[in-house]
Structure formats: structure tokens, C-alpha cells
């Protein structure tokens, strides 16, 4: 931004520093320290056993599946998996925290420093540090509605395994924060360690936001915005928070270190509690659990189960299918989409054609009807069958859209639709020539003008021919024949 720009731009004066703490619920069958089921949506307190209720005398037993998922994540972000980590108690009182402490990891987390690369808007890529990831148990839920001045407690969620993934304060804009969060979201789903369902709270985020004058190395005072459960909320909450902090400082005020809550209805953040009122969590190693020891063999066993990761897959799509980095990025944004694409190309059709149709017509149709990839009425087999008919000139790209719609509506595969609707291209030269002769005879004036040098009229003749053939003329062949006749 130039100095003589009239419009005020805070970006020239302030630098934004953002770090995210993502809570990903791990997709284990049972809870992290008990045998109770983790499925979402059961009747309140029906999936809470004695351990989850924190009854007197009960003890936690670590779920090995949660540990394997944490290792998987650590390997995927190129982090060091700790050979020894320790569970600690975080002590505070809250009605939905049954034991009066949360079992978490504090000084020694299971996953140490790693990183994740995100794409910036200008097409470049940026490496974001992952400070740590640790295992912990989720709390229950307080239900403030339906109890007339009282609070209900649902402990079904209590004890659900969480992986808390903490980033370095490397993010410099709300866009970067969202890009990082999306990348992480795709990654945990690739790894099949989290269902990523943000409405159900399976993947949620706390954002630490501060601003500092450009050029200053020291960090500004941060505010922590709690429990953001959509990409849009993350972006909006951070945007609001940046504006609030800058306005505050420019008005002579100071940012207070505090926890804030994002009110999605009002689009603003509000103070929850200042640090002075904050809890002293009195962390100490949980004496009910032994330190978590992970052997080299454990790590290698998990490594063997790692799927191809998004970045690697993207690069392979570029190399193997000749796609652009952008297209490869879109197609590998989710494992389902990438798998679908590869199923389409598996039949040997043109990879670029397959990419265009998958990202274009198919994605748009899914979007319109709000369907997941897995529920698509046009399967990979149906789509590849249709693409084969484009490639062998049975139908044109334009007619293919009609075929696609018919397949989407459940009218059968491409060949059936083409046959029933008579959509096969006319490639018989004599038939096309006869049609062209009729058009020339019916439009002498245009023929004269064209031959007089008005080249643009060529399109008029193509249009007339297409109209006469209901779009079924092979476009290349038609062009060739028209040119010959009109010359």
C-alpha cells in the first residue's frame, strides 16, 4: 500500500499474529479412559459409565486406539512422537467436568514440534509450525435451555478423546488462519482419526489473536477466542478481534489478556473472563495413569497404516495426470474427492477431461443438491462411461451435459441415455452435406456476404446446422464440410 493512498489501511501500520488451538475429537469407538461408546446424539447421559460420571473409586484406563491416532497425526505433520509422555490433571470446578479435573497432557505431550504447509492467496505456500499435539478427555455439556432457571448436565461427551493441536503464532491474517484450519481439517479426515463434523463439535478451534506495530518483534498482548466451530466464524471472529484491538490501541487503550467468546449472531467477540480471574489449574501428573511409553515398533506399526497424505497426493496428481497445481489441490482437498477422481480415470479416460468434469459439472450438481460425494447419484463408473463417449466422438461436450443430467436423474448409464434420446453425433458426411446444402439454399444473402469477406458469418452457418441437427453434428466435421462448401 503506498503512502499517498487516501483510504486508511490498517495493514500498512499493524501486523496481526494468530495462533490456533484445534480440538479434534478422535474417531475411536469408545472413550479415552472408559469403555463407554462415543457415538454422537444419544439420549442425555445414556453413554456415560461409572468412570465418565467420576463416581467414587473409579479409575481411568487409557484407550490404545486414541494413542495410535495421535501417533498417526504426529507422523503426518512430520513431528517427533514422544517416546514417553505424561498425563496430567488440570484442576477446576465446573458442573460438566465430573471429576473436578480434566485428564490432559501438560509438560510432556505425545506429539512434539511438527509443521504443515498452507497455500496462500497469491499461490505461494507457507510453512506453519505445529507446536505440539496432546491427548485429553472432553468435558460433558451444560444444557441451559429446557430446565426453567436450572442447568441440565449431559455427560455423554465426557471422556471423548480429543487431540489438541497447537500451532505456532505463525499465522498473519484471518485468511491464513482459515487456510491452516482447512488444511488440518482435511488432514485429520484423510487420516481417518476425526470425522471433522464441525456442527457436532468434532472439530473446533480456539484462536489466540494479537496485533503489533509493523516492524516490532515483541508480540502484542493476546486475547483468546474460544470455541469457534466453523471456518466462517473463525474468519469473522478474528477479523472482528483485529479491528477491536487496533481501535482500542489507537484510541490510547490497552489490550487485556483475556478469554473472549464469539457471538455469531452479533458478529462480535465478548469478554468471558480476564486473566486475573482465571483459574490456577494446578497441573500435576495423574497418579492413576502410568507415563505413556511408545516404542519404535509402535511408531513403525502406525506408520505402515498411513494413507497417502494430501500434499503427496497432490504432487502425484500433477506428475501422473498432468494437472495444474491448482486443479490437483482442488481434487485432493478431500480423500473422497480424490478417490472418486482416481476411480474415474482408472478406466483410461483423459485425466484432464475427468478433472474438468469432476470439479465442474459434478461438484456443481453435488453442491446444488447439498449431497456428499458418497451420495452422488452419478458414480465414478457412470461418469467415466460418459467421458468415454466424449472421447470416441459419440457425443459432443455440449450433448454430454444433457447426458449427465439424465444420469443424475437416474435414467441409466450414458449409452442407455444416448440411445434412448437419440443423442449420437451425426458423423455421416453425406447426411451433413445434405443439411449444409439446404442451409446454403435457404440463405443466399448470408452466403453472398460471407463469400464477400464477412468471415464472422461462419458462426451463423454453424448455428443453423446445429439447430437442424438438434446439436448432434460432430462440430469438427461440420466445420470442415461447411468451409469446403462455402469457399
Amino acid at each position, binding site marked *: 500500500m503506498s503512502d499517498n493512498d487516501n483510504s486508511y489501511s490498517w495493514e500498512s501500520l499493524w501486523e496481526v499474529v494468530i495462533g490456533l488451538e484445534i480440538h479434534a475429537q478422535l474417531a475411536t469407538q469408545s472413550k479415552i479412559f472408559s469403555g463407554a461408546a462415543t457415538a454422537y446424539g444419544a439420549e442425555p447421559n445414556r453413554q456415560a459409565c*461409572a468412570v465418565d*460420571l*467420576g*463416581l*467414587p*473409586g*473409579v*479409575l*481411568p*484406563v*487409557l484407550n490404545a486406539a486414541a494413542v495410535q491416532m495421535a501417533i498417526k497425526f504426529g507422523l503426518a505433520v512430520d513431528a517427533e512422537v514422544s517416546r514417553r509422555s505424561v498425563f496430567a*490433571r488440570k*484442576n477446576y*470446578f465446573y*458442573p460438566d467436568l*465430573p*471429576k*473436578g*479435573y480434566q485428564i490432559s497432557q501438560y509438560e510432556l505431550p505425545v506429539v512434539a514440534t511438527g509443521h504443515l504447509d498452507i497455500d496462500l492467496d497469491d499461490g505461494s505456500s507457507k510453512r506453519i509450525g505445529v507446536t505440539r499435539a496432546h491427548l485429553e478427555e472432553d468435558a460433558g455439556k451444560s444444557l441451559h435451555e429446557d430446565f426453567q432457571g436450572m442447568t441440565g*448436565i449431559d455427560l455423554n461427551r465426557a471422556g471423548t478423546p480429543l487431540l489438541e493441536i497447537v500451532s505456532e503464532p505463525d499465522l498473519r491474517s484471518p485468511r491464513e488462519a482459515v487456510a491452516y484450519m482447512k488444511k488440518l481439517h482435511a488432514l485429520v479426515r484423510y487420516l481417518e482419526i476425526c470425522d471433522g463434523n464441525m456442527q457436532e463439535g468434532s472439530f473446533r478451534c480456539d484462536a489466540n489473536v494479537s496485533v503489533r506495530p509493523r516492524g516490532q518483534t515483541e508480540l502484542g498482548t493476546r486475547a483468546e477466542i474460544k470455541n469457534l466451530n466453523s471456518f466462517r466464524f473463525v474468519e469473522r471472529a478474528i477479523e472482528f478481534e483485529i479491528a477491536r484491538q487496533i481501535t482500542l490501541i489507537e484510541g490510547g487503550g490497552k489490550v487485556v489478556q483475556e478469554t473472549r467468546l464469539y457471538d455469531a449472531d452479533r458478529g462480535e467477540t465478548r469478554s468471558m473472563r480476564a486473566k486475573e480471574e482465571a483459574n*490456577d489449574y*494446578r*497441573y*500435576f501428573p495423574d*497418579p*492413576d*495413569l*502410568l507415563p505413556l511409553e511408545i516404542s519404535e515398533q509402535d511408531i513403525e506399526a502406525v506408520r505402515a497404516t498411513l494413507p497417502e497424505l494430501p500434499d503427496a497426493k497432490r504432487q502425484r496428481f500433477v506428475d501422473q495426470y498432468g494437472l495444474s497445481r491448482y486443479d490437483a489441490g482442488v481434487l485432493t482437498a478431500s480423500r473422497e474427492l480424490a478417490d472418486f477422481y482416481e476411480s474415474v480415470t482408472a478406466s483410461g479416460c483423459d485425466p484432464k477431461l475427468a478433472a474438468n468434469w469432476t470439479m465442474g459439472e459434478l461438484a456443481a450438481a453435488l453442491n446444488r443438491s447439498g449431497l456428499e460425494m458418497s451420495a452422488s447419484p452419478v458414480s465414478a463408473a457412470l461418469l467415466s462411461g460418459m467421458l468415454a463417449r466424449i472421447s470416441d466422438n459419440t457425443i459432443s461436450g455440449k450433448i454430454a451435459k444433457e447426458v449427465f443430467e439424465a444420469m443424475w436423474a437416474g435414467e441409466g448409464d450414458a449409452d442407455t441415455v444416448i440411445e434412448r434420446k437419440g443423442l449420437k453425433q451425426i458423423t455421416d458426411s453425406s447426411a451433413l452435406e445434405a443439411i449444409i446444402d439446404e442451409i446454403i439454399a435457404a440463405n443466399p444473402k448470408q452466403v453472398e456476404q460471407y463469400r464477400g469477406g464477412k468471415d464472422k458469418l461462419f458462426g451463423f452457418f454453424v448455428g443453423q446446422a446445429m439447430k437442424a441437427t438438434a446439436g448432434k453434428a460432430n462440430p469438427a466435421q461440420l466445420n470442415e464440410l461447411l468451409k469446403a462448401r462455402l469457399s
Partner: protein
Amino acid sequence: MHQMTLAGIAAALTAGEFSSEEVTRYLLARIEQLDPQLNSFITVTPEVALAQAKAADQRRAAGDAGPLTGVPIAHKDIFCTNGVRTSCGSRMLDNFTAPYDATVVARCQAAGLVMLGKTNMDEFAMGSSNETSYYGPVRNPWHTDAVPGGSSGGSAAAVAARLVPAATGTDTGGSIRQPAALCGITGLKPTYGRVSRYGMIAFASSLDQGGPMARSAEDCALLLQSMAGFDQRDSTSVDRPVPDYRAHLNDDIRGLRIGIPSEYFGDGLDPAVGAVIERAIDEFKQLGAETVPVSLPNTALAVPTYYVIAPAECSSNLSRFDGVRFGYRCDAPHNLEDLYKRSRGEGFGSEVKRRIMIGTYALSAGYYDAYYLKAQQARRLIRDDFTQALTQCDLIVGPTAPTVAFNIGEKFDDPVTMYLSDIYTIAVNLAGLPGMSLPAGFVGGRPVGLQLVGRDFDEARLLNVAHRFQQHSDWHLQTPTQFA
């Protein structure tokens, strides 16, 4: 019949001299008649007991009986018992009926042991005199003005008074051994991890350990056999085979090296108690053991170390008693903070509150390193002392407590003096080692306990040594006159 030991009742049941129902009814009647003098039970469970006794008799008739099937015992009220109130000696849990059985309770039940009731204890096992119980103090059968020791004071008194042949106890800082000593019975605190803590209401998780309390080493061996073993529900229990504890009871102890720690015979030890212990050591020598002087140089650190670690853990363990889901809730709370403050303020007694405050302080930001972390370092030094000493000897012998039973009220308002009554037992919990107390004599008509401390998982040796001692002495056979 009440003078019969666990082993004796088991033998009589096997011989068909009487049924489980008969001995159960007999002891229930005896509890009803005599316990008002002692207050050793919080809850007597006649229905449960008779149902279990009948079932045991049927098992026996069907030829499906184990060695202890049909033998009555009592459980300390710290062990959760399905369908029966589990109070932990606290107003906080006066209304709490556990919906599940502790592993120890389930194992005893599987062995066919009959539960007569739940014994009194210091509130949440915090105390050395059984005076902190919400249900009132327990009286020592040897002298009803005296305390029975604590925290397993109800179990100790009930066994000493021959109300039950044996009972379970728990020991966090001497809570099996000190009351066993003060009541003249035999008690064993196993190695940390030997007995499952699942369903045993936690006081200090890294120290708590359940164990048997009975009148003889042989009975302790029998009951421990039913209690011990790996439990996948307790991550700190150790997956290691349980030996046959009775198999080696009669092994010769000639050549056994008995370590005598000089620190356990210094200031603070009542000289008369010391003399009793010296005589017991002479007895071992006559049995062919040799004595080795050993040193536990960090003994003085044990009490201060314990009173950081145990309160720190308890301050967290007792957070679940918040008036929200179970247990005591104050009347008409006007908001959440009021609910917490009054439920906990009214539900807990003063000793529990004192320890929660000490522990909260020790874990607070800015104090953690100076207290909790330092205490963990001291704990390691204490453990190292024992490890070192136990390379020079096979087991360590000394007094269980510095004095005999003191009178009710005598130390109640002086917590530090009270805490010092556990000076010889506490270090053993910090070290995680097995320890045992057995009767060794009397001072002024009150029992003196002898403590044995062994290597990790060396319970069988402690039981062997104690059993040999008991075959050559009759201290463990003495009965308080009123309960003879």
C-alpha cells in the same frame, strides 16, 4: 466360635462342623450385642450376609467351594459395595449407595467370603485415630478410652474384639499397620500395585493400597490371596502372578538377615515400646535369624514429604465431591458457587478440609516446584534408602508406631503430633514396599506392634517371618477381656 480364626472357620466349614449361615448369624448377633461399645461398624448388612452365607452353603453342598467359601469378613467402608451404602466415613457420602463393587469386594465375593458389614474409618481415610469419622470415633477394645488407630480403625477394632475373624483395610500412610499395632492384630500393606485400587475411594492415589487385617499372619495370607492380583481396570496394578501365600508360611528362617534401622529407635520412640521391640528381635535371633544394622538416613523427611504428596493428590481426588451428581448437597443453593462452597463446606469434616487446603496450596502456581516437586525428589531419596538397606538384609524390622494407643481426644487438636504417630509407617508407602504389623507385646495393657518391611512383592516372606514368630509367641492370641 468367635475365637476361631479365618483358617479355623474355613476348616470347620469344610469339616461340616457348622454352616456358613450359622457362623454368620452368630457373628451378626455378636456385632449387634457388642459393637455399641466400640462403634466399629458404620453399616451392618445382615440381609446381604445371610444371602451370601446361604449361597456359600449351597456352593459347598454342590462341591463348588473354595478355601474361604462361607467365611464371614467385613470391608472397610472405603470399598464400594454394590447396593450398599459406601460412606468413606464422611457426611459427604452418607447418602451414597455405590452402583458397583470394588475389585477387592468382587474378588472376595467370588471366593465366597461373606460380608457382614462396612467398618468405620477416619473420614476419607485421613486420620490416625479414627476420630475424624462422621460416624463418631471407634474405641479400642483393649481400652475403650483409647483410640484404635486409623484410618482403618473400625476394621482393627472389630477384628481385635472378635466381631469378625478378618477385615479389609487400606493403607495410605500406615492406615492398616498403625491400627493393627494399636489393637493388637496382624495387618499387611502389600506392595503398591499388588491389590487393585478400582472401587477403593481414592485418598492419595500413588500411595493407597488395600490389604488384609486379621489375627494372624496365616489369616492375612488367606485373605490377601483373595484380594491380590492384576486388574485391567487399575492401570497402576501390576501384571505379575500371585504366589501361593500359604505355601511358604512354615519355611525355616534360619540365616535370615534382619535389618535394624537405627533411625527407628531414636528420639520419639517410647522407650517401653522400644524394649518390647528389642525382645521381639531377640525372639527372631532365637529362631536362627541374624540382625544387620542398616540406615535409612532420610527417615526425617518421610512425614513432611508425605504431608505434601498425600494432600496434593487428595485435593484433586476429592474435587469430584461437588454436590452435583452424588453425595451431599447443601439446602437450596442460590447459585453454582454457593452450591460448591456449602456442599463441600458442610459435607467435609475439618481434617479433610485441612488436607485439601494444604494440597491445593502445594500445587498452586509459584509453589509447585518448592513443594510438590521437591517432595517427589525427597520421595525418591526415601525409596533409595530402602532399596540400599534391603541389599544388606532380607527385611527390615522396627516398631510400627512410636507409642501404644493414646486416648480419644488426646492428640485431636494437635495435628502435627498426630501426624508423627505415623513416622515409621509412612516411609514404606512412599517407597511403595510391602509392610506388615504384628503383635509383639504390651505396654500398660495396650498392644505394641512390630513392623516388618520387605522388598517389592516380597509379601510371602513377610508372612513367613510373621507366621514363624507367631508360632513361637502368643501375643496375637491375647484377647481384650471384655471380648474374650
